[in-house]
């Protein structure tokens, strides 16, 4: 069975897309979990500020999410563009 160059390039792009999104999801997942854990602690200590703390948590998580979105973009570029 002969494997052609174009086929090999496509295979590499598929593998790259999977690894990019897979590994890229680890960091944001763990990081956002830490934020949520500390937000729970903060609300436990000072329940009156729950609204402010929720907002802070969400903004922090959104920033942490950005690397996951970069991975998604690269994965989709590898799948559909290159």
């Amino acid at each position, binding site marked *: 069975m002969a494997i052609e160059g174009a*086929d090999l390039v496509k295979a590499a792009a598929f593998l790259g897309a999977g690894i990019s999104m897979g590994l890229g*999801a680890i960091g944001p997942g763990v990081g956002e979990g830490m934020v949520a854990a500390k937000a729970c602690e903060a609300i*436990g200590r000072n329940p009156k500020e729950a609204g402010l703390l929720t907002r802070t948590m969400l903004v922090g998580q959104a920033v942490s999410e950005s690397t996951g979105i970069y991975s998604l973009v690269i994965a989709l570029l590898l799948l559909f563009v290159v």
Partner: protein
Amino acid sequence: MDMNILTAMKIAAFAGGGFAMGMGAIGAAIGEGYTAARANLAVSRNPKISGDIFKNMLVGQAVAESASIFALVIAILLLFLEMPSGGYIQAASLLGAGLCMGLGALGSGIGSGFPAAETCMGIARQPMVSARLTTNMLIGSAVCQTPAILSMVVSLLLLFMQFENIPFQPGWGAVIGAGLSTGLAAIGSGYGGGLAAGASCEGVARNPNTAGNVTTTMLVGQAVAQTASIFGLLVSFILIFKSFPETRALSPAIALLSAGLCMGFGGIGPGIGNGQAAQGAVRWVARNVHHATDLMRIMLVGQAVSQSTAIYAMVVSLVLIFVV
């Protein structure tokens, strides 16, 4: 050297069996060691009730051990079972079964150590509630074991399904990808579920009056942490049960393998993150039970955001399976 189907199957079965037991031994051993370490500390704090602590240590370690017993079962099946010869695809699926169980036992083994360890410490602090602590530990660590059980289900499917109608060329990627998807995703959920369960045992010991709220928060948090491994299971089932057209090209097989890798790795982070969020919430429900509802709400919001990357990974996996 003549290489026939039987030789290929033997190579795959032995490599898979070794991987399953080797990786499967890591998690449970770490979890049990952590339990024993905390049990020693607990006995030194309160030597009068060493018998009770010792008993709970052993029960907790036995639950943590079950993950590696699943791996042992799969490894022995791979070594000694007479497999029906179904072609090279069957060999690939044996390797996938070994990968799945070996990786899948890691997180549950470590995770189950946390509730057992905190139960030992809790009994030293509050000997009166030892029965409540044992119950809480058993519930928590049973939930921790579910990712390992999901991995065993996928391993057994890969061992006993007949794949003879499926062409080898894209099929090998599908069966190995199916093993990797559930196996890797189970690491995060098992570990994360353990964090939540450990915090709940600590919380019950700190303030036994809050036990009901603490156990409820733990179960909700653990359930959300399990979703990552359920996404992995979903992708595995699609890869196992969908039929793929035969092809001469390499790229369709790599796409299926990559779909499994993507969902598997993608499930690790959200599983751990959801567990951390649940740990924080459970810990503070025990300290400030009047605001249990607020804590539950912020835990669920935080977990939902943390879950989003697992959903991205699932989207990319499904694109790899169905679109390209």
